[in-house]
Structures are given as C-alpha cells and as structure tokens.
C-alpha cells in the first residue's frame, strides 16, 4: 500500500479497501522507521490521527472528495496551526502559527490528512537542503548525495514513499531541482495560481507553491484542490477554477517541443544529456515534433536572480526583530543591540549572506545600478520565452547540469552552489509553470529529471504532456532500494 500513487490511494479509499486512519498509521510508522533520512521536522501523531478520523467520517457521511483521507506532508515554509512552523530556521524554533496557510487550508478542506512538516533549506534558500538549521536530509537513492533544495525534505518524503505527496515551494528551482535529484515528479504552477497567504516569504515576486508526487496524474488531482484565487494574497490571480486533469488523455501527436539550445551547451554532464535526449526521442516516437529554440539571455538568469531574490529577502526578513515572535537574544545592551544580536543568532549563514546582498543592492546609490537593471534584464528573459512559445507549445530540457552532488561538495562556495539552478531560474523569473519528471538514471545510479515548461496558465497541458510520457515509460515508478 505504501508505494501506491495518490490516484491509487484515492481508489482504495473509495472502495473501502483501506481507511484514512489505516493509511495515516501506515505512513506514520514508515516515517518513524526511516527517521535517519531526517525528512520530517515536526510530527504529531495525535493530530494526524484526528484528521484521519475526520476524513473517514466525511466519507461515511457521503461528503468525500477524491482526496479525502489521502495523506500529505507540508514543507515547513507553510504555517500550520497544529504543527510548529520554523522555515527550518533557529529564528522560528517552536513557532506555533495562529492560522493555517491557504494551501494547507485548501487541502484540509478536501479531506487530506497532514503527516507532519518536512525539512527544507532555511527560509527556502538553498539548492541542497544543507542550509537547514535542523540538519541534512538524505537522498534515499544514495546516502552520500544531497536530495536537492530547497524542498529537500518534501523530495525525500515522496521518493522514500514516506508520503504519497508533499507540498513544496519554488523561488528559483526549489521544486524542480530536488524533484530531479530525487527521482520524483514536481510542479510549480504559474506565479499567482497558488495563494502565498501563510507561506513564509522569501522573494515575493518569485515565490510560488507547488506539489511533489510520484506522477503528473497525482499532481493534477491535488492541484484541483490546492490552487485557486485568494483575496488575502494581493498577487493571487483572479481566474475561474479549472480541472487540471482535463488534458491528461490528450495525445502528444503534433505537439511542438522546443529545445533551448543554450540548455544543451557546455556544463551539461553527458549522463544527464543522454537521459534527457532519450526522453525527447520518446516524445518524437509518440508523434511530437522537436524544434530548436533559443533563449540567449537565459544565462543571465543567475545574476538577475541573485539581485532580485536577495533584495526581496532583505525586505521580507526585516520582520524578524525578536520583538513580536521569533528568537530573542538573551544578553543585550539596548533595543538596537537586542535586534542586531537576535538576528545574528537566529539566522544561519545563507539567509545572512542574502540579507547583506539585498541590503547593499537596495541601498542609496546602488538601487538603479543593481535592482532596477536586474528587473530590466528579467523582462528581457521573460520576453524571450514569449518569442519561443510562438515556435513551440512546451519547452523541454534538463533540470540540472548533473545528477545530485555530494554533501559538502559545493557548500563552501556560494557561487558554485548558485549555479545549480542555471536551467530552472529563467522560468521562475518569467513566472511560468514548470515541472520535473523522472527520465532515467545517470552517474552513481542517481535519477535524472526532464524539465518541461509551458506558457502562463497552461498547467493542464503541461501535466498532460508529462502524463503521456509516464504512460509510455516507468521511470516514475522506480523506487530506491532499501525502502520496501
């Protein structure tokens, strides 16, 4: 039962083969058994079981949705009333939110059962989960490899089948990169589709919630409950709700798949390139046409991102002052000293680094040269995607240059670490929906992801394109050894 997809669990719950309480118990026991992965930060079995009992009642009363009783883990970036919400930071150790994030609320309303909160990079800043204040998360495919980040706990939870689904967030690649490194399916919707209400803010013009699952079909089922307009988020998009499963059966015959030539250049490792090209050949076999496209400014994505994201982070994280919530230093001279010491003690090295970069680029005399210039180049990148979508329906390529790297390999060199998001950042800057699906294995038996990007609001098509591939291949069904 533990290896079943969300769609399969939904059917098993519907037929009465299993109850929500039984499923909750099964996954709680697995999480306990694989504690060494360090995927979970907070578990409260009594809360989980109470939610499961309520789900079983919903079903008995005929109020069940397709997701009622399906367990889910939430990234510790979403605030929750019944579990601590820390953003994997010492700054928020033990923080209990007075409310649930909109995404958490939506999924609970559909009857999904929360297994607990999962680890991530501190304030979602990182590409390896090594920036968590609560320790590294293991990649179940290889204990020496990182799971990716920032949604590393979510990725490991799904890859090790500790949860059939986990929420995640993407600012520059934090869903697609860990999904690729961990051999699972991960999707971020168009910016504005998922409410940011109750999502601890990092870079507000980029942050977007998404989901990690075993398959595109599962992601579509969950998006139906998770996404939608929310007046509490000022950047939420006002659009009618839609059925994200509607294009799952759509054939790919005649589909034009754009391959950005810049994503197949130097830097791309041969093992990743081979798996990605094989996946594209599979699409061709299914009747799709491959078209070479060009995104000449995409390589500027990283410098643009490392101006905009730190600028917005320095502003968002200024709320942590040790006054209203969060860590307060124990020794200080006066108010200013209290704030400085609380922030010095509460934040880890990466958030501090980004706050400093952001403070500098926004400071007097530098705003035009850095922040405004970065916002202009951001538009050049976004416009390029629009030109590309005149020649193709979806864009495909690698998610990362290599398979998952080892712990400590890039931790000492921030710039090297930042380059991990080379292929994912451009889509995030444009605000486009994007996903990663498993498409094979590379060096050291580690998974490779195929990145698919669609135009604004075309999540249903994106999920359909991914689902056709998953109907023709079984990479997404492969599981790491030792988790049975």
């Amino acid at each position, binding site marked *: 039962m533990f290896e079943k997809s969300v769609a399969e669990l939904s059917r098993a719950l519907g037929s009465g083969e299993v109850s929500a309480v039984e499923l909750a118990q099964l996954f709680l026991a697995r999480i306990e058994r694989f504690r060494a992965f360090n995927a979970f930060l907070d578990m409260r079995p009594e809360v989980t079981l109470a939610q499961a009992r309520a789900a079983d009642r919903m079903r008995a009363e005929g109020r069940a949705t397709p997701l009622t009783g399906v367990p889910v883990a939430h990234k510790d970036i979403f605030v929750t009333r019944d579990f601590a919400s820390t953003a994997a930071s010492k700054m928020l150790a033990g923080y209990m939110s*007075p409310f649930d994030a909109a995404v958490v609320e939506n999924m609970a309303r559909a009857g999904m059962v929360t297994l607990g909160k999962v680890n991530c990079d501190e304030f979602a800043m990182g590409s390896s989960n090594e920036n968590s204040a609560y320790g590294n998360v293991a990649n179940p495919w290889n204990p020496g490899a990182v799971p990716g980040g920032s949604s590393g706990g979510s990725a490991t939870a799904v890859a090790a089948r500790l949860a059939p689904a986990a929420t995640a967030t993407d600012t520059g690649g934090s869903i697609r990169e860990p999904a690729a490194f961990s051999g699972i399916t991960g999707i971020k919707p168009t910016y504005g589709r998922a409410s940011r209400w109750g999502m601890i803010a990092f870079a507000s013009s980029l942050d977007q919630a998404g989901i990690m699952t075993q398959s595109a079909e599962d992601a579509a089922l969950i998006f139906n409950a998770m996404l939608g307009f929310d007046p509490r988020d000022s950047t939420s998009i006002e659009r009618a709700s839609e059925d994200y499963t509607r294009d799952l059966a759509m054939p790919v015959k005649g589909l034009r798949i754009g391959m950005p030539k810049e994503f197949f250049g130097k830097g791309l490792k041969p093992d990743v390139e081979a798996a990605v090209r094989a996946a594209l050949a599979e699409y061709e076999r299914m009747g799709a046409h491959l078209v070479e496209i060009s995104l000449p400014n995409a390589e500027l994505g990283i410098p643009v991102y490392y101006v905009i994201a730190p600028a917005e982070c*320095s502003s968002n994280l200024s709320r942590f002052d040790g006054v209203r919530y969060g860590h307060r230093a124990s020794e200080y001279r006066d108010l200013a000293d209290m704030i400085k010491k609380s922030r010095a003690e509460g934040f880890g090295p990466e958030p501090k680094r980004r706050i400093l970069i952001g403070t500098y680029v926004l*400071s007097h005399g530098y705003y035009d040269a850095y922040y405004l210039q*970065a916002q202009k180049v951001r538009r050049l990148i976004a416009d390029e995607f629009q030109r590309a979508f005149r020649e193709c329906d979806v864009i495909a390529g690698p998610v990362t240059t290599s398979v998952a790297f080892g712990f400590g390999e890039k931790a000492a060199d921030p710039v090297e670490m930042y380059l991990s998001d080379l292929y994912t950042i451009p889509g995030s800057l444009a605000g486009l929906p994007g996903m990663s699906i498993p498409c094979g294995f590379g060096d050291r038996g580690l998974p490779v992801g195929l990145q698919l990007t669609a135009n604004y609001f075309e999540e249903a098509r994106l999920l359909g394109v991914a689902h056709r591939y998953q109907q023709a291949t079984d990479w997404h069904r492969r599981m790491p050894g030792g988790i049975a």
Partner: protein
Amino acid sequence: MALTLDDVTRIAHLARIEISAAEAAGTLAQLNDIFGMIERLSRVDTSGIEPMSHPLGGTQRLREDRVTETDMREPNMRNAPEKQDGLFLVPRVIE
C-alpha cells in the same frame, strides 16, 4: 568594483545584523565573488526596457474598505518572546 571591509560593516549595520571582525572578513570574500558574478548585468543594454516587478504585470488589487479582521490579539501574541498586559515588551528606549 570590489567591496571593502568597511562596506561589509556598514551593510551589516543597515541590515541590523551583528557581525564580528572575523565574520566580516570571511563574508567580504564571499560577497565579492557573488558581486563578481552579478557585475555582468551592467554590460547588458537595457535602454528602453521597462523594469519587471511582477511576472504578469499585475497592478495591486484594491478591496472594499470594510473591517475583515477579527480581534486576534491573544493568538497573535502567543509567540512573543516577552509580553505583559497585551503588550510586547522591549528594552527601555526613553529614559
């Protein structure tokens, strides 16, 4: 243009983060690496390009001016490091 140790100390002060001399030296090297990478942006011709502050160019939505928040004082103060009589406590700022 490289940052100096004084710049790092000044930025850390603006960001209200205490930083020791040793930390500042380590941070200086890292920030200069990062700004070395960012510097490429200055060579991009962006004349006539509008800055992009929001992916879909949205304007801020306005809502009707009516009370929507209920009194959440007690739950909102639950996580306060120090509080008294419904107020957040900070060190004395006026003698």
